Structure formats: structure tokens, C-alpha cells
């Protein structure tokens, strides 16, 4: 178990590509932290430099306040799990899990005890005699996790471990990984591009883009208090709606001439900036639909997508397309003209550099 700290870590590839840019991040002891971002954002590079699989250009990495970045990979006590489980095809599940212990030349009785314990935790005792060719995708991945776990490492590093599995298996296995981690309390860094997976599994989520850490927080922090437009857009489904606004006063704004009510913190943030190219961000949950009203933002319903007890409504407005989530019993008909209103305290404003004006304040 360990507390991991990245201090000013940067990694630049020989061709000049900056994979990680000045990363400062603490992963608390026993925490499950997700690195979330699109492909190429630097999330995999981050755990690979931590594991020692790749070198980096600048900065340092500490485990429990001791520098580990000069150590060879095997001395860092990380266990990695990849998307392709890379099992030995000629060995049984038992032998695959036992491999790291055999490499350490532990006595056979201890190896047996530890592998059996892991098999029980992962509910795959009945699979121990099988070779990988006779295991399903989910079972193989479980063996892969078992092999990483059996070493009782100081930290777990998982790189899209469920990426290629079928949807229902992903949901099942991610709950299992979470359970395991809660039970064992091993510091875990989990890399994914899937926000749903991150929301399901993580204590805290780090959103990365273009090698840079954008924001660290709980899923709700990212959802309700995104620090910039990238995070606002990347987290939340259906995605946040963005509408260009005009400044009508020092602390008021309008969308296509329609005045938008703002919370006091947002008005204060507005007064503090001269920026005139602002973008309003609204979560689809934070719209209410009603009859069209003069001096409101009105629009035409282009599509209604039922989703059980709620529906996703696409609306074409003079300011641009909008998406609203409404309860099923209040969904409008396609083609209807409706008025959009929104909760003033849940709005987000982004400046011309895509930074949130109400950093750490807006939302719930």
C-alpha cells in the first residue's frame, strides 16, 4: 500500500510530442483513482512512467515520500493489468496466477495457499485447471487480475482492463474490481476513456487532455463544477449544451436577446472579467420545457428519444441546437414549438479561453 506522488512530471517523445506536461498529482493510500480522457491524452503514458515501463523527461515520482523513478520496474512493486490479458497459453489458470510467485521462488505450499485464496476472492476456483483457450473473455481477464493480485503489490495499475469485453461483462467485472479494491485497500490507478466506467469505479477522477491534467475530483465535481469547457463537454451524457451569449451589462447576459437569470456568484464572476466572447453551458437535465413565451428562448422540437421514465428532447433554437431531458409524462411532440427555461444556479459560463468563470462554485 502506498501514497503516490507525481511532482512536475513531463514526458516528451523524441519527435517533440508532449505526452505528459508538468503533472502534479497525489494518489492517496488505498484510493482508486481513474485517469479519464480521449485517446492520446497522456493517461496511459502516466501509468507507464509510474510502472517504469517508460522513462520521462522531467520531474519525480514518489511512493510514501521516497523517490522511485530511478528504480527498475520490478523494484517498484506495481502490478499492471492491460486490455489484452497476455496469459501464457500453455499454462493452466492456476499456473498463470502462480507465475509471479514461482518467479520469486516461494515454497510450493505458500504458492498453493495464495493462488487458492485469490481464486476464491475472484470466484473462479472451478476454472483453475483450465487453459486460456477454454476460458471466456471475462474469465481470462479475471485470471489476468488474479495474476496481478497474487503478488500483493503496493499498487495496481490498470490500463483499459475491460475495453474489449461485452457490455454486460464490463459492468459485472467493474463492480468486481471495485469490490476487490474496497476489500484489499490497494492503491489503484485505473485508465479509461469511458466516463460511465470512471463514474462507476472511482473515488476520484482525473480528466486529462493533450498531456495535461484538466481537473481532479469526484464524478459530481466534474459534472457540476467543471473548470473548463473540455471537462464540461467530456463528462456527462447526453453532453452539455453550449450557447453563445451577449453581454448586456457588467453582470448580465443574453442569448439571442433573451435575458438569462444568473446566480450571484456568476454575476460576481462576470463583473470581474472584460471578456466579451462568453459561452453558456447548460446540462440537459437543467432545462425545463414549457409553452413558448415571448422574451424567452423558444425553439422547435426536432426529435424526441424516449428512455423509459424520461426522454431526450432535441430542440432547434435561434441560438443553436439544445438537448433537454424531461420526464416521460411531460415530453413534447416532434415539431412542437416550446419555451426553454433553465435553473440559474446550475448554469456554467466559459470565457474565450474556454475556462469556467464560476470555477468551483456553479452547479449543485
Amino acid at each position, binding site marked *: 500500500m502506498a501514497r503516490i506522488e507525481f511532482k512536475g512530471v513531463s514526458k516528451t517523445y523524441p519527435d517533440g510530442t508532449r505526452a505528459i506536461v508538468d503533472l502534479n498529482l497525489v494518489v492517496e493510500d488505498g484510493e482508486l483513482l481513474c485517469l479519464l480522457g480521449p485517446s492520446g491524452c497522456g493517461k496511459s503514458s502516466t501509468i507507464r512512467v509510474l510502472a517504469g515501463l517508460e522513462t520521462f523527461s522531467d520531474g519525480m515520482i514518489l511512493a510514501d515520500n521516497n523517490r522511485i523513478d530511478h528504480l527498475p520496474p520490478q523494484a517498484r512493486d506495481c502490478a499492471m493489468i492491460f486490455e489484452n490479458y497476455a496469459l501464457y497459453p500453455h499454462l493452466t489458470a492456476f499456473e498463470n496466477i502462480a507465475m509471479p510467485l514461482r518467479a520469486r521462488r516461494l515454497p510450493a505450499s505458500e504458492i498453493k495457499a495464495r493462488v487458492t485464496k485469490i481464486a476464491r476472492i475472484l470466484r473462479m476456483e472451478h476454472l483453475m485447471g483450465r487453459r486460456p483457450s477454454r476460458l471466456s473473455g471475462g474469465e481470462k481477464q479475471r485470471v489476468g487480475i488474479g495474476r496481478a493480485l497474487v503478488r500483493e503489490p503496493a499498487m495496481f495499475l490498470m490500463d483499459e482492463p475491460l475495453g474489449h469485453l461485452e457490455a454486460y461483462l464490463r459492468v459485472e467485472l467493474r463492480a468486481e474490481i471495485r469490490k476487490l479494491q*474496497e476489500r484489499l485497500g490497494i492503491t489503484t490507478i485505473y485508465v479509461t476513456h469511458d466516463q460511465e466506467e470512471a463514474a462507476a469505479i472511482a473515488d476520484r477522477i482525473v480528466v486529462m487532455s493533450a498531456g495535461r491534467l484538466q481537473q481532479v475530483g469526484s464524478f459530481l465535481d466534474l*459534472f457540476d463544477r467543471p473548470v473548463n469547457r473540455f471537462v464540461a463537454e467530456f463528462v*456527462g*451524457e447526453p453532453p452539455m449544451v453550449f450557447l453563445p451569449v451577449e453581454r448586456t451589462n457588467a453582470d448580465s447576459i443574453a442569448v439571442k436577446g433573451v435575458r438569462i437569470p444568473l446566480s450571484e456568484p456568476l454575476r460576481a464572476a462576470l463583473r470581474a472579467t472584460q471578456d466579451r466572447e462568453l459561452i453558456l453551458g447548460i446540462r440537459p437535465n437543467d432545462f425545463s420545457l414549457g409553452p413558448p413565451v415571448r422574451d424567452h428562448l423558444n425553439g422547435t422540437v426536432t426529435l424526441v428519444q*424516449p428512455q*423509459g421514465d424520461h426522454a431526450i428532447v432535441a430542440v432547434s433554437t435561434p441560438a443553436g441546437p439544445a438537448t433537454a431531458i424531461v420526464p416521460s409524462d411531460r415530453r413534447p411532440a416532434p415539431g412542437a414549438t416550446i419555451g426553454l427555461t433553465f435553473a440559474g444556479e446550475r448554469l456554467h459560463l466559459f470565457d474565450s479561453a474556454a475556462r469556467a468563470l464560476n470555477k468551483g462554485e456553479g452547479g449543485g
Partner: protein
Amino acid sequence: MAEVQLSGVRKRFGLVEALRGIDLAIPDSAYVCLLGPSGCGKTTLLRCVAGLETVDAGQIRIGSQNVEALEPFARNVGLAFQNYALYPHLDVRGNLSFPLRAPRRRAEFGDGEIEQRVKSIATLLQIDALLDKPIVALSGGQKQRVALGRALVRNPTVLLLDEPVTHLDARLRHEMRVELKLLQRRVGTTTIHVTHDQLEAQALGDLIVVMRDGLIEQVGTPDELCTRPATSFVASFVGDPPMSLLTARLGQEAGVLSLRVGAARLRPGERLGRLLDGLRDQDVEIAVPAHHIALGHAGDEQIIAARVQAHEWVGRELQIVVALNGSPVPVRLRTQQRLALRIGDEIAIRLNLESAHAFDSKTGRRLQSSAD
């Protein structure tokens, strides 16, 4: 544009009966989703309509024509797959024009008409700026648009889509769903869309065909599936999150009907009580929509002890999956409360059975009263 009619369609692969007698009428211009878990036969059915598989028995009519004996190219269907299946050595224009230049179609379209059709479909899909780009230079969403364009360029009578947006990331998937549906509305082509994702089926389908083990469980609008699921299988498949399916034993308590779920005894309420009236000492299956399950407090009525199996944030709500005592079936609920739950925690849940659905535990069929 045409209606599609299937009657008695059967298909066997070796020992596996993939389709065991499919009867289905798809109205002209409808957007129909074939929904079911893997292995239910939905893709086989689509491939039979396309002519990529021959049927062992039964008829397939497109418009007024029996097509089950026709070659795929003669059926005038447009196909788009999950993995796009674009020609990597051709550019976007080459891929879009391919169906018009296919050997069997030579001379049907002149160069001028081909170029004009490619342009108009590219404009419709907003890929007109990409016509000269090689396929490898496209993003996932752009490739999917090209695949759709290729399927539509011949003005097919039926558009067949196999998991067309499944593998796209969340944002793009949402955008493409909207685009697909609006596009279909505009061109009006009868569309059959295969998916395993019930939310996708609900979002897109005018009609949803729920399939299981080579048979149709139910055909209905998204609302019908949610408000009147025909079987417990359909009920356990629909909703966000899906409805929870409980096995309940019917009994009497002081002369009043009661439902025993695990160790708890619940009152069915008026509507469900009427439905179950006359049934005694037997099991029924009860499906409860997630928004009728809440966290309970000691002392509340209608509560059941449960153990947390998983918890995750969905937007601002916490989705909790729990197991009831002695039941292997997960129960799903959502709450706005900000709880710090751990897997294995004991909690109490409260069930509102007023709008629950009841099913015969042997047949899985919906129980209904005459007034229902």
C-alpha cells in the same frame, strides 16, 4: 420505400436453431429496432432480409415482392455494419459511388448521375468536404457517415443497420443517434436497426421487436414495452436502469392478500391486488420500475433488507444495485441522496408496487385483468 413482411421465417445453423418461426410486419417508412441479447437471432434475421443468409422456411416480402429467393443485389436493400466495412484503398467518393459502379449495375447509372447522387448523399450527411479524403484519414464518426451514405446512395427500399453506433464514444454515439433518426425521417426509407442496447432501441425505434432464443417476445412502441411488457423477460430488459424482477409468493395475512419477497411481506396495493385476485399459494414474478424503488428507513412500511452489490454515479443520481436476501436477481434503484456506500453494506429498500407488473412464474406471460 416499402413495407416488409416476414412470415414463418426459420433458420438453422447446424444444431442451433437461430430463428424458430418469425412473423413480423414492418409498416412502410417505419424505423424498427431488433433488440435482444447476443444469440437471440436479431442479426441472423437482419441478414436473412438482406439476403446474406438464405432462409430454411418462410417468406420475406419487401413491398409486393417475395424476395427470399432473390440474390442480395436484387433486393435493393442498403446495408451498414458496426465495423463500417469500407474499402480502405478507395477515397470517400470511391466508397460512396461503389454500389452504383458494381459490375451488376454497369450501365444503369451514367458518370454524370453517379457524381450527382454521390454529391447529394454527401451533402445530406455533411461529408461533402471529405469526398477526396482517403478512408484512413477519417474519424470514427466520419467513417460511420460514409458507411451510411454508401448504404443510402442507391435509394434502397429498405435500410438495414447492424449495431451502427455501438462502438462510438458516448458523445459521438449521442450525436449519431440524433442524426440517424433525423436522416431516416427525411428520406423516409423503411429501416431495420439491430442493437443489444435497449436505450438505443427506445431512442430510435418507432417500433421495437424484442427477441429471445430465435423468437419474438414482443413487438411494441417504446412506451408499450415500458407500460405493458408482455413477458417478464421484456420487463427485465427495459427501463433506465432496467426494471427489477422479483419472485413473490402469494399468501394471506389476516384475510388480506400479501406478497412474500424473501423474508419480507408486502401489500400489493389496489391495482396489483386486483390483478392477483383469485391466485393463492403460488409464485408470481413482479417487475418494479426503478423509479418506484427507494431507499427505506427502519419503521417504514413495505421495506426489504438488501445488500449493496454496486454503486455508481449516473449524472447527479447515485445508481445502486442491491441483492435481496436469498435472491440472485439484482434490484436497481436511483437516488438523489449523496450517500457514502460501500459494497456489502446492508440497506433497506422500499417498494412501491402500485404500478408494478405481474407475470406468471411458469410461462413468464403478463397477468392482466380485463380492465387492464
